[in-house]
């Protein structure tokens, strides 16, 4: 029947015209969408490339470093007191440092240590901070009087931590543990604790006033479950972004502490901060010795910052359609 075919035709045609607007059959979670947006962001890509290169170098360093980083293989060729340095050459691409050690090998192995400090310090700060903040946030979100009191106690403690300068913490820890990589990690990590704690708690408080938490309460969901499965997961986004950004500052701070002499005194395990500290004495005679670690620190920090900022942007609900 003509009328019938016409109807089928127009329904087909409509389906065809609207087809391109249909999403995939599976739903895309926010996480997947965020990741998809990240992949298209030039900022995220450049950040990821830098961070990826840095990670790669850090992992393969011991295998590709041409020489032992602590060995003074060309000790006699370098005379810092007479201003005699050896620049880049065939066997030492980055030249030699003031004790006649291969600068390239030291840079590669240094990447490993710098990364270790950054990651461990950030993890430490993140874990301790998120635990304190999470407990405080959960205590308030549970909505009981004791919860508010527990929160007040934790937050005053956090405020106290904030009041102590990071450097003072580092000096105190160094006094206890002696200068070592651990000292630097703990000091940098502790300085981050209050930031993570405040961020997570604030984020949880904001979420606990949201409509879907009210809706869950109206549904008859118990308060602990609301905190666990609604408030906490939705509050983690900004904290994770902060962790990425913190990696950048942690590497810089670790370098600064090493520079000040709180780092590992063992010359066989170089890190960029200590290298910078060493090089500073010969800034006039061999400025390139300071330049290598300085540029490496700047580029690495930039990579983490770019990645963190891109994540912040793609998680921002205002930019979501």
């Amino acid at each position, binding site marked *: 029947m003509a009328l019938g075919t*016409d109807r089928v035709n*127009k329904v087909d*045609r409509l389906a065809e015209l*609207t087809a391109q*607007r*249909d*999403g995939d059959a599976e739903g895309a979670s926010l996480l997947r969408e965020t990741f998809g947006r990240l992949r298209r*962001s030039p900022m995220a890509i450049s950040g990821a490339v830098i961070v990826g290169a840095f990670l790669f170098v850090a992992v393969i360093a011991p295998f590709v470093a041409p020489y032992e980083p602590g060995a003074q293989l060309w000790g006699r060729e370098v005379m810092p007191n007479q201003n005699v340095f050896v620049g880049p050459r065939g066997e030492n691409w980055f030249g030699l440092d003031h004790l006649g050690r291969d600068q390239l090998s030291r840079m590669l192995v240094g990447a490993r240590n710098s990364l270790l400090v950054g990651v461990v310090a950030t993890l430490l700060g993140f874990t301790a901070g998120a635990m304190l903040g999470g407990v405080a946030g959960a205590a308030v979100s549970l909505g009981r009087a004791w919860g508010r009191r527990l929160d007040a106690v934790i937050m005053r403690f956090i405020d106290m931590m904030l009041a102590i300068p990071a450097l003072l913490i580092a000096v105190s820890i160094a006094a206890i543990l002696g200068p070592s990589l651990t000292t630097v990690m703990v000091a940098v990590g502790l300085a981050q604790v209050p930031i993570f704690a405040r961020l997570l708690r604030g984020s949880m408080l904001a979420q606990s006033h949201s409509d879907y938490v009210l809706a869950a309460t109206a549904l008859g969901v118990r308060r602990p479950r609301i905190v666990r499965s609604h408030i906490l997961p939705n509050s983690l986004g900004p904290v994770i972004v902060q962790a990425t950004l913190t990696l950048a500052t942690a590497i810089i701070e670790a370098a600064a502490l090493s520079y000040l002499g709180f780092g590992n005194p063992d010359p066989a395990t170089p890190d960029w901060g200590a290298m910078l500290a060493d090089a500073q004495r010969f800034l006039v005679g061999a400025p390139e010795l300071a330049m290598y670690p300085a540029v490496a620190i700047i580029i690495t920090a930039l990579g983490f910052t770019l990645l963190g900022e891109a994540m912040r942007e793609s998680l921002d609900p205002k930019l979501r359609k």
Partner: protein
Amino acid sequence: MPLLTVDNLSVTFTGDDKRPVRAVDGVSFGMDEGEVLGLVGESGCGKSVTSLALMGLLPSRGVEVGGRVHFDGIDVRSLPARRLRDMRGSQLAMIFQDPLSSLNPVVPIGRQVTETLRRHKGMRGKAARERAAELLDRVGIPDPARRLTEYPHQLSGGMRQRALIAMAVACAPRLLIADEPTTALDVTIQAQILDLLGELVRSEGTSLLMITHDLGVVAGLCDNINVLYAGRVIEASSRQQLFANPHHPYTAGLLGSVPRLDAPRGEALTPIRGSINDTIDWNDGCAFAPRCDHYTMECLTGTPELVPAGEGHQHRCVNPVNLDPGPADADRHGHVAEGDNVR
């Protein structure tokens, strides 16, 4: 000569990593001196973007604007930025939906009003302050002298919108654009503001372009009404014609969707199925076709044109409804209520 002519205005947002979005897709209309025109449509139909384009307030980055806008014979879009700024506030003025974010929170109301007067009229000092007080009094703000020294947060929502209107009419503009001016307000305050707007434009002879989603608001206030859908005018008519004989199925559907306070109780609503997301490109056919109960193959093959139907009445539909005025047939409420399905 019409005061404002908009000819084939289009606005496309070209985001960095997104597909370009055509918010306004060839909007054309004209306004006479003293006319009150309603621009009606739901969210995403392009009505607010149109108003921003008219005022030249769209950002230059990531936005492509096409078409022509003539105000009083002057091509607004080719005007240098300086001239356009001079024109805004003195000849063209705009009020927005949210009066609080349209006012500077740290500057007293009085300074914000006198600023406009100084900028466009060169009024200063006592004269400007007196004129500002007069304006606040004109828009029905009691005790204007005291209000001048107050900050926006000290005023209620209705008072803020009045203050904003005072600023907009400070230089006696010839065209006032109001973008959802009462949407954020309560119904009794809305009545006050609509009353004020209607009285202001009629007594001063100002033209008013009223942008809203509320059919009730335009029914009482506007002379003529343009209905927008997916970035195009789909029906244009006088208000009497539009409400009595809506020709486009979308307009008819909108009227059937709104519960009327005066309707006999128990009268069923006849919703439009689907949502604004169910649309096709105007180039492929009629954007409303996926939600329309009257669509045919013809609706899916070519772009429908705006065709006249009776005096001052135009519609963009190949299968219009209610073409013969008279005893209303089943067409107006003939839509089958269907739920929208997930696609």
